[in-house]
């Protein structure tokens, strides 16, 4: 039962990704062509409001529902990891027109071919794990 809340939040996520057309390949292409404000508005407003959440967490004004302090683990530092990994991710994001969240939402939309993309993404994660020690970070 403790997992049902994550399922419900996931449903909300899937609905908003669909209804705001974030799962549309065309919206991602349009974003990278700088031909619409739509995606920038979504990501930008999510970040601006997210800053308020982070402030409330840091000041301990909001705790988890169990009353524990919320600590947001910082991402690992490193120019190579973030820049090179980011560039590869960006190449894939613009080609697939979907980042990992939308990929799953597209299954619900009934897009069979997205399963090939998800399989590729899992393979990519596996090969990262395999060659991780040989890569700059």
């Amino acid at each position, binding site marked *: 039962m403790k*997992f049902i809340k*994550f399922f419900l939040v996931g449903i909300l*996520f*899937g609905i*908003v990704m*669909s*209804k705001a057309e*974030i*799962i*549309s*390949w*065309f919206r991602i*292409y349009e974003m990278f*062509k700088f*031909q619409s404000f739509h995606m920038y508005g979504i*990501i*930008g407003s*999510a*970040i601006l*409001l997210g*800053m308020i*959440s982070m402030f409330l967490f840091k000041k301990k004004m*909001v705790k988890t529902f*169990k009353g524990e302090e919320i600590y947001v683990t910082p*991402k690992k*530092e*490193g120019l190579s990891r*973030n*820049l*090179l*990994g*980011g*560039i*590869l991710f960006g*190449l*894939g*994001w*613009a*080609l*697939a027109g*979907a*980042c*990992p*969240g939308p990929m799953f939402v*597209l*299954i*619900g*939309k009934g897009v*069979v*071919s997205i399963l090939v*993309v*998800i*399989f*590729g993404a899992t*393979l*990519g*994660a596996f090969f*990262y*794990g*395999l060659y991780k020690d040989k890569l700059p970070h």
Partner: protein
Amino acid sequence: MDFILQPWEWYVAGPILSFIMFLLYYFGERFGVSSNLETFCSIGGAGKFVNYFKIDWRENLWNLIFIAGSIAGGFIASNYLTTTDAVAINPQTIKDLADIGIMNAGQSYLPDEIFSVDTMLTLKGFSILIIAGFLVGFGARWAGGCTSGHAIVGLSNLELASLIAVIGFFIGGLVMTWLILPLIL
């Protein structure tokens, strides 16, 4: 009800996404979708080959449930909450796409030239899908996050690492959109 059936504007979607992030932290977890790809590897037995995947994937079960919910949400939205599949993209975008061989842009969520089952069953079509996925998965795990973990959480938290990663996302995305897509489509 009509409001729900129309496409949602950015100022509706952005705050809801931010609220989703808030809820996941309030429930004692975090917001990050791409780590599920590593969990898939662990469940599939990748820990036998690579120590990196030797984790107790049950600890990430909540996140698998979250993406299961997102699949259900996609199903609900497309079957019950949407009256048209058209996406109102910029007319200039439609022209640009026609120039590189993507027809009927915006008449559905995805271009048939990449996502139709017929395209998927060709060698070129299948390769494009798998390479696109591979780049997303490899890149996201190398960078330690994707649009959710880096762009939304990391930038909200004012982290330099995430700023660098998001700059990387855009370098890659712009190179693909402006230089590579016209060559391969």
